[in-house]
């Protein structure tokens, strides 16, 4: 199978920070807002270079969403940044009314998403955020797989006209996609071609999917690995083309079952091409304190579990 090299672990939120700075240099309309999490959101470089375009909102996320919408109306391209739970669940009505319904060109930079937020525990870990954002009409939902892709997705989000939910994480993870590859919203990436089973993954689970494909290859199973970095709009053609070929799907995400990538894929297949689907996700659970890697293993969000799910899917063919 195609080999991917980890060029050195980096956190995806740092990819956002670099992407934000680049986007800010390319377009003077880009502004950044945070709710007392400038360092965590890696906005320091942007704030240092463009102090008048960095807006500290304090611990008042609801107001931040509305203010960003107002800035967007005047023609700015605002990125708002906080922990994922606090820019989704906490301010859901605000995002819905001001950004979605109000068609404001706001980019929600959602950091520390998923269980890998780690030690802070479940009040801060969200495994429901993609469900909430997917439910909003026209919201673009992106979960890039590594530092490089997060940087490039940030740049793409700035250019896209319309609300974007960009979800990334806290810990350092393998960095394996090309440094300056243009991110195309809505286009899945076939990371490895295969014929026996399809593994669709997003975010931190993409590297795990590639490791799972290696495990399966050693057992004579050829897995197609798809990086579904854009969760909404889903690249339906990519999924259907693959399903026709392999006839067995696994969907892996750092998110619970309800309303996530897995249900999005399953919904598509149920409508268009009924296919056995196995799911690797947080099921219906809250997170808890722990290191990111301990939590990933404990909640079954790793290569081992993806490989097992792949074999189950194949058995259902």
């Amino acid at each position, binding site marked *: 199978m195609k080999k991917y090299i980890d060029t050195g672990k980096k956190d995806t939120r740092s990819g956002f920070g670099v992407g934000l700075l680049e986007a800010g240099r390319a377009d003077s309309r880009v*502004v950044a807002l945070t709710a007392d999490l400038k360092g965590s959101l890696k906005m320091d470089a942007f704030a240092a270079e463009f102090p*008048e*375009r960095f*807006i500290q*909102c*304090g611990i*008042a996320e*609801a*107001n*931040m*969403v*509305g*203010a*960003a*919408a*107002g*800035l*967007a*109306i*005047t*023609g*700015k391209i605002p990125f708002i940044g906080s922990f994922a739970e606090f820019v989704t669940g906490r301010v859901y*009505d*605000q995002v819905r*009314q*001001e950004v979605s*319904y*109000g*068609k*404001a060109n706001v980019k929600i930079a959602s950091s520390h998403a998923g269980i890998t937020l780690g030690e802070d525990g479940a009040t801060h870990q969200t495994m429901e955020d993609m469900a909430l954002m997917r439910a909003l009409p026209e919201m673009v939902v992106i979960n890039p797989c590594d530092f490089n892709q997060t940087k490039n997705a940030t740049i793409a989000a700035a250019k896209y006209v319309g609300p974007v939910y960009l979800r990334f994480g806290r810990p350092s993870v393998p960095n394996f996609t090309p440094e300056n590859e243009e991110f195309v919203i809505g286009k899945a990436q076939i990371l490895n071609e295969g014929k026996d089973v399809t593994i669709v993954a997003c975010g931190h689970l993409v590297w795990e999917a590639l490791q799972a494909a290696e495990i399966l290859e050693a057992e004579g199973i050829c897995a197609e690995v798809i990086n579904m970095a854009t969760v909404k709009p889903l690249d339906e053609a990519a999924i259907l083309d693959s399903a026709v070929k392999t006839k067995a799907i696994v969907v892996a995400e750092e998110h619970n079952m309800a309303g996530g990538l897995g249900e999005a894929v399953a919904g598509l297949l149920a409508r268009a091409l009924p296919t056995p689907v196995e799911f690797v996700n947080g099921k219906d659970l809250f997170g808890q304190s722990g290191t990111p890697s301990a939590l990933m293993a404990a909640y079954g969000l790793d290569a081992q579990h993806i490989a097992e799910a792949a074999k189950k899917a194949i058995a259902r063919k």
Partner: protein
Amino acid sequence: MKGIWRKKCIFVGIRNFTLSDMYSNDQLQEVSTQVRRDILRMVCAAKSGHPGGSMSSTDILTTLYFNVMKQDPATWTRDGKGQDMFILSAGHMTPVYYSVLARAGYFPASELATFRTFGARLQGHPSIRKSLPGIFQASGSLGQGLSAACGLALGKKLDKDDNFVFCLCGDGESEEGQIWEAGMFAVFHKLDNLIAMTDWNGKQIDGPVAEVAGEGDLAEKWTAWGWNTIVAEGHDFDSIKKAFELAKAGKGSGKPTMILFKTEMGHGVDFMAGTHKWHGSVPKPEQLEDALKQLGETSLGDF
């Protein structure tokens, strides 16, 4: 540029107001009376809507759009560049908002007849999805508009656009915490181009504010929050004009301004005035007839 009175509408043209160039109180009263007629007729035609608060803020919004705001209805764009902007944070007051916009020339007054009907641009609460000129942002979920207004004001500062952003809130709405988040933000970011107004009518759906949530003295609260705070009589055009004059003079002070307009829900019609009952209730046909008789006709004419 003074308004030219015609039979069915007021010609507004390009409004670049200086404070010496004002409509007389009689002229403003005539517009206000017509707006109140529009409000009641719209709500009755739709069999739903919010007349009470619309009528308490009628004189405020009439003065704002006909005397104060720098605007050009014919060339209006949502980004508001080079113009004053307005957010109706108390989004349910669409009857007064739409009537004032129509009478100011943003769209034909005849369109007021479509209020709240399927396919209409005049949605129950302000929408930006129907291409209705004059609407800068959707609103209706209370407590959010002041934040949007802060964003507009900040955008203008970044663009070195010297114009004002206005925002109308309700006093019941001011029970929402986000209003106070926006209040803190505006002071911290020195948004002295932001002029907010509260329709201080003392009423909300479940009764008088004092009996429902008891938010106390708003003047003390906004002053404590760091705003330039003005208290004015919301049905006295001299008081309203003076309030806006003082508010605009706040530009350069580094502080946003809140004008608390003391008003009466349902003002203008005797059986509606002073009670909370008409927040979202529709007059019966005979009540409408009575109300219109009390208000009297104007030279602007009904839609």
